[in-house]
């Protein structure tokens, strides 16, 4: 790694494109969006980003392993349904159970997907696409298609809890916990190296004795658990479970966040800080649109354009000689 001083302006732009875009978005909003700079807006942004943060970090791990998980939105909806239903069944004393059940349920969803992918070698895109529909269906079946209101005093309070008398929302703490956990998991533990190795060269990884079957299953389980955490945050914030709408299209935001970070979608690299910034960018775009009353169709355009631009800047730095890559594998 060269020190920052030796980099040209173009290189700085490329390496720090994600933070720069985030900064530009903030400056733009500070100048043109009324009330943007108030502290409430900031806390609101944090609250809204918390669930997608968990989901995106899970997605980051899946993508690093060379896979993809587009069932995350449905899994989040499923977790939310499980949470509210358990809270009904358990009465008002069982808040803890209401949090544990979705975690177990979503972890199982991830494990099943992982097992199918590892065992039958079906492309992750296909498996998780099928599960996107399947899990959404199960979630709607569980709630009978209705919106279930969360009526658990403890959990109702959790969504709007502030840190020690200040106005800082509890979600900020959860975001911090998520980052720390994923940082340790991927950067400090051998697990992270194994994922990167598997994503980069699955055949070589198998030969060096990595338990690839276990690894793949574990990766999708982590994504499932991340979705469960997201569902708990989202349900306690909205105070209801809407199994048909909650988490809809969330996989796209999560993939976008990972892509903005510069993580190659072919796998092999984990960029945790880039993903965190990517999450804030996608959420800030949504907020900018909402607060400026931009029409929905324009907002979609804007979102697409910004994500595309971010990825384009990232890509230009890795002009690889594709023509020389080995395309023929020995039969």
């Amino acid at each position, binding site marked *: *790694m060269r020190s920052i001083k030796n980099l040209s302006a173009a290189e700085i732009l490329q390496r720090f494109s994600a933070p720069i875009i985030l900064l530009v978005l903030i400056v733009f909003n500070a100048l043109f969006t009324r009330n943007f700079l108030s502290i409430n807006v900031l806390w609101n942004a944090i609250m809204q980003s918390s669930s997608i943060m968990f989901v995106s970090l899970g997605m980051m791990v899946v993508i690093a392993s060379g896979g993809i998980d587009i069932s995350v939105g449905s899994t989040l909806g499923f977790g939310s349904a499980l949470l509210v239903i358990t809270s009904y069944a358990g009465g008002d004393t069982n808040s803890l159970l209401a949090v544990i059940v979705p975690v177990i349920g979503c972890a199982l969803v991830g494990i099943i997907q992982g097992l199918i992918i590892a065992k039958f070698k079906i492309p992750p895109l296909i498996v998780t696409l099928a599960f996107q529909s399947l899990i959404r269906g199960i979630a709607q079946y569980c709630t009978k298609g209705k919106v279930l209101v969360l009526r658990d005093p403890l959990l109702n309070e959790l969504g709007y809890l502030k840190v020690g008398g200040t106005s800082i929302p509890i979600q900020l703490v959860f975001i911090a916990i998520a980052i720390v956990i994923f940082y340790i998991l991927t950067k400090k533990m*051998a697990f992270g190296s194994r994922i990167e190795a598997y994503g*980069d060269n699955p055949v*070589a990884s198998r*030969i060096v004795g990595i338990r690839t079957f276990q690894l793949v299953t574990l990766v999708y389980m982590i994504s499932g658990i991340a979705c469960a955490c997201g569902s708990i945050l989202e349900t306690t914030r909205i105070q209801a479970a809407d199994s048909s709408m909650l988490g809809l299209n969330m996989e796209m935001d999560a993939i976008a966040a990972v892509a903005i970070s510069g993580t190659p979608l072919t796998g092999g690299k984990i960029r945790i800080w880039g993903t965190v910034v990517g999450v804030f960018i996608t959420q800030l775009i949504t907020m900018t649109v909402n607060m400026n009353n931009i029409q929905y169709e324009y907002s979609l355009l804007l979102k697409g354009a910004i994500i595309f631009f971010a990825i384009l800047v990232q890509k230009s730095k890795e002009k690889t*000689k594709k023509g020389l890559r080995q395309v*023929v594998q*020995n*039969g």
Partner: protein
Amino acid sequence: MSNVLEMQNISKTFPGVKALNNISFSIKRGEVRALMGENGAGKSTLIKILSGVYQKDSGNIIFDGKEIDPKSVLESAREGISAIYQELNLIPYLSISENIFAGFYPVKNGMIQWREMEERAAKMFADIKVDVDINNAELSSMSTAVQQMVAIVRAINMMDAKLIIMDEPTSSLDAAETKSLFEIIRDLKKKNISVIFITHRLDEVFEICDTVTVLKDGEYVGTRNVKNINKYELVKMMIGHEVAEERKMAINTICDSKSYLCELRNIAWNPKLSNISFSIRKGEILGLGGLLGSGRSECAQILFGCNIPDSGEVFYEGNRISLKSPVGAVKRKMAFCTESRRTEGIIPNMSVEENICIANLSEFSNKIGWTKRKKTRSETERFVKEFSIKTPSIKQLVKNLSGGNQQKVLLARWLCMNPKLIILDEPTRGIDVAAKAEIEKMIREFAGRGISILMISSELPELVRNCDRIIIIYEGKTIKELSGNDMSEERIMQTITKFHEEEQEVEMR
């Protein structure tokens, strides 16, 4: 104008490395020129500049009488320069004829003329006397050798090449295939097409090339007519100092004839292996010899648990084992350096450090899986020094190293888990003379420490030089064991041809 190509003062710098410094030479029409040098000498960079993959920093390229500066492979192909890389640019899911004609399909009224295409392709392959299914089978189901032939046929017939660059074309060919490749090259000569032939094998230079150009560390060393130079002088040019052809070390003293580490008994794996039996002693270097496709690599894959045999038994340290995956093999301290370093060996986008530590992560992390960075760093640095791996730092991505250094990284990867058995499949393929000698020396040193080695090589001299015993495999069967004074190139070839003739006699009857 008798020169097809003139390179004048070509220079190229990569961040931190001067890859080429003022290279000048010229090639005549119909000349076969060997381009030699150790790994990292600049051969690859030079041909990539010629074929438009890289752009030169300075200097001129005069091709076919006019100055060119190709910016892409397509541009250089249009000028008449065709490069056949070690990694082939073919489409694995198409047939051979489709691969040959890709982009040049014979078209009438907007429709591809399949029959014409197939007939022409059949003729091209008949010309070079290669007998394969060119229309129905997918290319990916063919051997590397056939795929290489396809690339060559395509360059000659489709691209109308005036200069063909072959980057180690023989590294994946067996003796017969090499012979037919040389036939093709002689044909090219007759058609006044020039060839740049990159190889590490000295014999081939003297057999097929007219002249040889040597590069060293990005500098031009010289060009000689092969008639005016001998092997010894050529090696001296390449490495700059003299190396005596190293004779085999005295038979291993540690090698204890009584204690076997592992044994394969009557292994069959359809359709590649029918009856394989051999055993490896502790601290011995056992060679597996045989023709390409005889089942040598498959034996290694079975032993390591990559494939599960249909029948037969594997014994390891006295116990019968049946491995389901390489996980069990690694746990039992077996190591496997695979044949294709790039696709099955290195993890290209990870650093040298990560590549070395990946097989031994459990050793480098504490009980809860926390990686001990200090230990991985110090171990890596120790290996980089001990094996003299040339890398700017241990954080360098392994894909940026040369072939020889990548192989050293792989050896280091396995050695750091203290293996009892190392399986080496073509350990020196595509590696230059100096690094080859180093790696062979390392292998013998490992055996000296009591590690058993199973070595597979297409290069007979390499087997004879290093092995304590050699097992000969023919069409999936172990047919002979050679040891001591019986081990020579001639004996191995004799054994194979004799067995081949006997087989045919049986068939006749």
